[in-house]
C-alpha cells in the first residue's frame, strides 16, 4: 500500500488526463471530452483518498515521501511529501476539480476540450505545489499553474477578460520572480534545493529579512494581501464560474500555504520580527476590504472582496504564531475553499440564467427559485461565520488566537463578524427576498438536478465541517505544534 506513489498519481493523473481530453479535439466531440474529463477528475480524487486514510496524525514528519533525482546539475530533486498542513489542500483541490468539471458541463459550449483540459492540468500542477518538498520543484509548479488560469480567464471570460488575464499574470509573476532569486540564493548558500534542509540552515538576521520580504512579495500577491490585491476583483469578475471557483478555493490558498511552508520555518526570526507588519496588513484587509465589499453593486466583486477579507484572517492567524491562530487559519483556508466555491457557483447559477451579476437586476428570486434560495442562504450564512457552519470554526479560532495575542487586535478582527454579516446578508436580501423585481426574475427556472447535486455536496461539506471539525483539525495538531516549536527556537547563532 505504501509503495504506490499516491502523490505522483494525484499530480500526473489530472495532467495526463487533461492531455487526453485535449486529444478529443474539436467541439463536435464535446461529449466525449466532458466524459473523459469527469472520469479523470473522479480518478484524480480517488487517488487522494488513501492519503487521508493512510495518514499518521501522530507524526509531524513528511509522509508519503517520494524521491528521485531530477536535475543533477543543480542538485534539484523530485521530492514529494505531505504533512498535516498540506494534506487537506490536496484533497480539497482534487475535490473542487470534480465540481468544476460538472459545473462547466452545460455552460461551456465552445472549445470544451480545451476548457476541461485547462482545469485538469491546473489541478495537477496545484497538487504539485502542495506536495513539493524541493524549492525548485515548488517554483516550477507555482509558475506553471499561471498558464492554464491565464487561458481560462482570457478565453472564456467576460468582456474585460484580456485586461484581467494579463493583470493577473503579471501581478503574480512580479511577486514570484523575487522568490526565484531567493531560491537561487538559498541554493547558493546551502548547496541544495530541499525545503527541509533550508528549514535547518542557519541564516543571519539580515539575510532572513531580505528573504522574508521576497517571500512576502510572492505569497502576498497570491493571497492576495492589501495593497496588492487589486488583480483579484478584476480576475474574479471576468473569469468564468469555474475559473472563479478554482481561483478562490485553491489558487488563493497557494499564497497562504507558501507562508507556512517557506516564510515561517525558513526565516523564523525575520517572521517573528516582521509579524506586526503582516498583522497590520491583514487587519487592513479584514476591516477596510470588508467596507469595500459593502459598497459593491456586482455580486462577484462583492464575493471577491469578501475573499480578500477572509484571506486577511488567514494571514492574521499565521503571524500571531500561536497554535490557535495557525490552526484557525488553516481551518479557515479549507472552509473558505468550500464556502467561496459555493458562493461563486451560486452566482454562476444566477448568471447562467440572467447574464447579469448586478445586484440591482435581481430581487425576489426566492419566489421563482426556492430550492436555490435555500442553498444560497446556507452558504451566505457560512460566509459570515454563523455557528454550525464551517466559516464559524476558523474565524472563531483565529479570533481566540488574536485575543490571546493582543486584545485589541482580537477586537478589530472580530469586526469581521459584523461586516461579513452586513455585506453578505444585505446582498442576499436584495437578490433573494422582496417582491419579484422584473419579468426576467419572474421567468427564472429553479436549479436542475446537476446544479442541485453540486450545491448539496458543498452544503454537506460546509455543515459537516461546522458541526464536527475533528477530522480536519486532528491531522494538523502535530504538524502545527512542530512548526511553532521550530519557529520559536529560531535559527540565529
Amino acid at each position, binding site marked *: 500500500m505504501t509503495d504506490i506513489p499516491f502523490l505522483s498519481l494525484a499530480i500526473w493523473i489530472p495532467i495526463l488526463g487533461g492531455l487526453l481530453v485535449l486529444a478529443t479535439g474539436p467541439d463536435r466531440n464535446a461529449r466525449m471530452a466532458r466524459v473523459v474529463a469527469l472520469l479523470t477528475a473522479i480518478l484524480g480524487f480517488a487517488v487522494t483518498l488513501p492519503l487521508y486514510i493512510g495518514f499518521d496524525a501522530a507524526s509531524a514528519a513528511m509522509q508519503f515521501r517520494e524521491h528521485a533525482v531530477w536535475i543533477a546539475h543543480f542538485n534539484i530533486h523530485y521530492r514529494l511529501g505531505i504533512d498535516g498542513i498540506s494534506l487537506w489542500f490536496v484533497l480539497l483541490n482534487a475535490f473542487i476539480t470534480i465540481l468544476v468539471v460538472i459545473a462547466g458541463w452545460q455552460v461551456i459550449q465552445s472549445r470544451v476540450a480545451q476548457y476541461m483540459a485547462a482545469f485538469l492540468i491546473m489541478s495537477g500542477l496545484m497538487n504539485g505545489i502542495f506536495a513539493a518538498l524541493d524549492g525548485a520543484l515548488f517554483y516550477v509548479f507555482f509558475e506553471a499553474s499561471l498558464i492554464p488560469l491565464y487561458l481560462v480567464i482570457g478565453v472564456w471570460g467576460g468582456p474585460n477578460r484580456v485586461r484581467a488575464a*494579463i493583470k493577473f499574470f503579471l501581478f503574480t509573476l512580479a511577486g514570484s520572480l523575487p522568490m526565484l532569486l531567493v531560491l537561487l540564493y538559498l541554493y*547558493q548558500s546551502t548547496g541544495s534545493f530541499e525545503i527541509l534542509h533550508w528549514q535547518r540552515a542557519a541564516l543571519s538576521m539580515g539575510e532572513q529579512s531580505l528573504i522574508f520580504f521576497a517571500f512576502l512579495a510572492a505569497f502576498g500577491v497570491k493571497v492576495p494581501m492589501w495593497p496588492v490585491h487589486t488583480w483579484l476583483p478584476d480576475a474574479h469578475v471576468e473569469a468564468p464560474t469555474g475559473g472563479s471557483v478554482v481561483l478562490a478555493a485553491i489558487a488563493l490558498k497557494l499564497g497562504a500555504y507558501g507562508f507556512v511552508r517557506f516564510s515561517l520555518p525558513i526565516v523564523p526570526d525575520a517572521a517573528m520580527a516582521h509579524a506586526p507588519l503582516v498583522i497590520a496588513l491583514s487587519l487592513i484587509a479584514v476591516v477596510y476590504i470588508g467596507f469595500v465589499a459593502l459598497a459593491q453593486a456586482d455580486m462577484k466583486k462583492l464575493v471577491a472582496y469578501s475573499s480578500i477579507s477572509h484571506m486577511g484572517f488567514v494571514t492574521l492567524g499565521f503571524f500571531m504564531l500561536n497554535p490557535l491562530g495557525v490552526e484557525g487559519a488553516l481551518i479557515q483556508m479549507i472552509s473558505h475553499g468550500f464556502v467561496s466555491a459555493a458562493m461563486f457557483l451560486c452566482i454562476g447559477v444566477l448568471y447562467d440564467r440572467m447574464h447579469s451579476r448586478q445586484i440591482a437586476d435581481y430581487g425576489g428570486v426566492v419566489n421563482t427559485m426556492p430550492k436555490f434560495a435555500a442553498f444560497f442562504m446556507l452558504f451566505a450564512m457560512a460566509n459570515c461565520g454563523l455557528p454550525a457552519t464551517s466559516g464559524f470554526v476558523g474565524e472563531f479560532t483565529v479570533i481566540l488566537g488574536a485575543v490571546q495575542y493582543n486584545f485589541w487586535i482580537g477586537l478589530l478582527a472580530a469586526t469581521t463578524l459584523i461586516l461579513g454579516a452586513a455585506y453578505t446578508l444585505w446582498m442576499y436580501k436584495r437578490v433573494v427576498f422582496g417582491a419579484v423585481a422584473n419579468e426576467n426574475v419572474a421567468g427564472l427556472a429553479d436549479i436542475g438536478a446537476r446544479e442541485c447535486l453540486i450545491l448539496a455536496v458543498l452544503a454537506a461539506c460546509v455543515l459537516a465541517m461546522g458541526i464536527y471539525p475533528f477530522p480536519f483539525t486532528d491531522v494538523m495538531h502535530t504538524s502545527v505544534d512542530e512548526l511553532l516549536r521550530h519557529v520559536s527556537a529560531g535559527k540565529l547563532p
Partner: protein
Amino acid sequence: MNVPDFFPAAAEIFVAVMALAVMLATAFARDTARSLAYALAQFTLLVTAFITIFTLDTAPAIHGFGGMLVHDLLGSILKLIVCFAMMIALLYGHGYLAERKLDRPEYYLLALLMTLGMMVMITASHLLPLYIGLEMMSLSLYALVAFDRDSVRSTEAGMKYFVLGALASGLLLYGMSMIYGATGALELPAIAQAVSAQAANKPVLLLGLVFLVAGISFKLGVVPFHMWVPDVYQGAPTPVTLILSSAPKLAAFALALRLLATGLPGLAEHWQSMLMLVAAASIVLGNLAALRQHNIKRMLAYSGISHMGFMLLGLLSGIAGKADSTVVAYSGAMFYAIAYVLMTLAAFGMVVLLSRAGFDAGEIEDFKGLNRRSPWFAVLMLFVMFSMAGIPFFIGFFAKFAVLAAVIAAGYLWLAVLAIVMSLIGAFYYLRIVKLMYFDEPLDDTPLAASPELQLMLSVNGVAIAALGLMPGTLLSLCKTALLSSSVTG
C-alpha cells in the same frame, strides 16, 4: 593518440568539398538544379552531423593543423547543433522560397559556405582561422540577407548589414592585431600563457580587448552594437532571418568563449565588467523596445537582443580561481545559447508557417485567432512564447534559471535583480502573442498551407521545447562535460 594532423578539420573539409560539389552539380543539372541543391545541402549537413557524432570524444582536446584547430567535446557539440539548426532552418524555408522562386541553387551554396564558416569558428584555436571562419560566415550572410534582389527592403537590409558588419570585422581584426602585438602569439593557449606570465604590454592588451569585445558584441547583436538587428531581421526574407537568428548565435557564442575564456582568462576581470554593461544594456533595451513593435520579426529581433544579453550573464559570471563555478557559469551560457536557438527556430518557423504564396506573415496581428485555425500550432507557439518569457515547464525557464544561478553565485545581485525586473516586462509582449492567438478571433480563416515536412518538423521543434523543459538535466550535464573537456578555464 595517433591521429592525422587534419583530423580536427575532418567535418569542415567534408563541408568544403561538398560546397564545391554543389556548385558544380547545379551548373550542369539545369532543370533540376534547385531541388538538387536543396537535397545536396541537406545531405551534406546530415553527413556532417554524423561525422561529428562519430568523432565525438570526451578525451582531452586534440590540437591539429599546426595548432590552428582544436578538436574537443565543446566544439563537437556546438558543431552538431549548428548542423541541426541549419538543417531545420533550410527545411522551414524551403517551401517559402520555392513559392517565391527564391530557391536558387546559390542559396543553398551560401548556406553551406556559411556553415563551413561557423564550423571553422567553433574549431579554431588560433586567431587566423577564427577570423577567416567569421568572415566566411558573415560574407555568406550578407549575400543571403540581400537574396531577394527585387525587394528594396531586402537589398537595403543587406547593404546595412554589410557596411556595419564589415566595420565590426575590422574592429575585431584590429583588436586581434593588438593582442598579437602585445603577446607575440596567435594561438589562443599561447596568448593565455603570455598574458598570465605578465609578459605582455598591458595597455595595448586592454585596448585590443576593447576592440575584441566590440566585434563579438556586434556578431551577437547586443547593445550598443545592436542597431542592425531589427532592420536586418525585418528586411531579410523570413527563411534568411531564421538562419541569421539561430546558428550564427551559437558560432558567436563559441567566438566569445574561445577568444575571451580560452585566450584571455588573465584579463577576465576586465572583459567581465565590459560584458556586464553590455548585458545589462541589452536586457533593458531589448525588452523595452520589443514592447512597442507591431512587426513580429522586429519584436523577435529585440527579444533576441535581450536573450543574448541573458546569455552573456552566464559568460561573465566566471569566478577567478574557482574553476568549478566558472565551468558551471559557462555551461549556463551554453545551455542558454542552445535553448535560444531552439526557441528562435520555432518562433520564425511559425512565421513561415503562417505565410503562404502571395502572403507574408510579418505583423503580430497575423497570429490573431490561431487557436481557431489550428489548435495544435497555437499550443506550440504558446510553448515557444512562454519558454521565451521564462515560464516553466519550458526550456527557456531553465536557461534563465542557469544563468541567474551563475550570476548570483558570482555575487552580482544587482544584475540578477535587473534581469528579473526586465524579464517581467518582457513577459508582457510574449503574453500579448498568446492573447492574440487564444483570446481574439482570426483575421482570415484560410487554412494553413505549409508543407507536411514543415509541419512535422515544427511540431518536433515545439515539443522539444517542452520536453527539454521537463527533462533539462541531460543537456545541462552535457554542456558542463563539454566545457570541462575544453580548455576554457585554463
